[in-house]
């Protein structure tokens, strides 16, 4: 080998870049500026929208139809003061949470069962597609007939809404596992049980969490919908009750609370996901 190449190969390697580069590099400053701009614009957007709404209400459109941010705020304060809202939130959340948990349990369970058993999956596939396309709201009256007006009916309906995204994602997650990987672990002497619990289920978890994110709104929708149909408590009841009384401010107030709950639940699931799927976020 020639000398020139050896000389080229033994050139010393620079150990570390200077830390200062992170403070002065224009790409970092540009990114920071962009982040600040996004937050400022978000706040500006809500100010413009709420301000416009406030101004339009009573001048262009009657507050009877659209209420106004200030009226909604006062309605909220009143609901909180009377104690009605905290109780409504509690009962809605109870239904949403128990429906969510039930839906997850059934969705993940059936997803795994279908994922590992091709015959079962092929046999039941058309039936599930049928059930999936059915407008599930149409089932509420039937559920009332079967389970009454109470907690069970609301929970089961919520679970049904939550079930599908979770089930579909679990199934996709299990099917997504590389066959090579399963072959390799079988050669190591793994039993079917090992394969399911050490490979298939953990590997489907990322998909399951994607399903959870999708079904968080469904849990709230399910609970609120069921309450609108049947209940004398909860946010759904407030929504249908205020609507019946043409109380648009109260109606909007309930919608605001429902939206905030949805965001809070989504955030919670996101937190859990980051903990459980730690390995996914550990990238360079």
């Amino acid at each position, binding site marked *: 080998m020639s000398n020139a190449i050896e000389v080229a190969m033994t050139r010393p390697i620079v150990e570390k870049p200077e830390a200062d580069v992170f403070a002065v590099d224009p790409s970092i400053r540009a990114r920071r500026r962009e982040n600040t701009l996004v937050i400022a614009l978000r706040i500006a957007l809500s100010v413009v929208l709420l301000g416009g709404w406030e101004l339009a209400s009573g001048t262009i459109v009657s507050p009877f139809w659209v209420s106004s941010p200030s009226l909604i705020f006062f309605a909220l304060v009143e609901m909180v003061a009377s104690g009605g809202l905290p109780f409504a939130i509690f009962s809605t959340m109870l239904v949403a949470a128990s429906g969510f948990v039930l839906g997850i349990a059934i969705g993940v369970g059936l997803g795994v069962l279908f994922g590992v058993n091709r015959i079962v999956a092929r046999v039941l596939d058309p039936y599930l597609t049928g059930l999936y396309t059915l407008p599930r709201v149409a089932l509420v009256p039937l559920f009332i007939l079967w389970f009454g007006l109470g907690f069970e009916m609301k929970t089961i309906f919520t679970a049904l809404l939550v079930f599908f995204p979770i089930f579909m994602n679990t199934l996709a997650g299990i099917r997504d596992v590389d066959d090579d990987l399963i*072959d*390799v672990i079988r*050669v*190591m002497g793994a039993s079917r049980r090992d394969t399911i619990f050490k490979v298939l289920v953990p*590997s489907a*978890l990322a998909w399951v969490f994607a399903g959870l994110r999708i079904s968080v709104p469904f849990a709230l929708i399910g609970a609120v919908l069921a309450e609108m149909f049947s209940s004398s408590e909860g946010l759904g009841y407030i929504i249908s009750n205020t609507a019946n009384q043409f109380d648009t401010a109260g109606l909007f107030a309930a919608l605001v609370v429902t939206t905030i709950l949805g965001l809070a639940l989504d955030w919670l699931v996101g937190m859990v996901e980051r903990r459980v799927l730690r390995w*996914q976020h550990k990238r360079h």
Partner: protein
Amino acid sequence: MVPIVEFDRVSKVFFKGSTQVHALQNVSLQVRPGELLAVVGPSGCGKSTLLNLTAGLMQPGMGEVRYDGSAVDSVNTQVAYVTQKDNLLPWRTVESNVGLPLEVGRHRDMPAIQKRERVARYIAMVGLKGFENHFPAELSGGMRKRAQLARSLVYEPDTLLMDEPFGALDAQLKLTLQAELLKTWEGSGKTLIFVTHDLTEAISLADRIIVMSSRPGTIRSIAEIRLPRPRDVFQVRFSPEFGDYFETLWAALREDMKHGTELH
């Protein structure tokens, strides 16, 4: 001497999705214990099928596959399988990935201390000391390959099956890992069946090379590679014998290269 792996007039058809694949046609082959056998051939010529049959992941359509004298009729846990794709479990650290084979199968009941000791030994052997707690996503491609190698060595199987393990790596890294593989294998007494489409790689590593035809795969030629051991993969390619082997084998391989079809 009983061959460690023996193919006796094996033919094989399998389904890839809904397409029928005629992978092997009347293949007879004997693998000697302790040898490094390379299998080369055009893409999709049934090289991987040979390994799948040896591992008992597939059953022959006709003929018989024997391992250490007895027919392979279920998954063969005497072997370890390294595939081309990266398939470490992404949610496990290096240490826990390498320890996986000791959690399943016949090593399940090994005392925890022994398991830890053995995992540490093989991690050190492949040069990953200090990366035990890293997740695969934090490793480079070469390091992931090393971890995979440690995972297949840790349960100390008699035979190692490798399916184009270095196929996706860049040229320099490939050479480095080939050298490390040889260093690990030479003197270990283990049998290694190494599938590749890279003739240079095959000649650098192997004791014997099997050239396969395009689908349905048949054995076109078998060559003994009498290059001295221990071998230096960086130097061996410049020896005159290397060139002779290359020409002979290339002639056998070339005819089929244009017919090769990749399966997806």
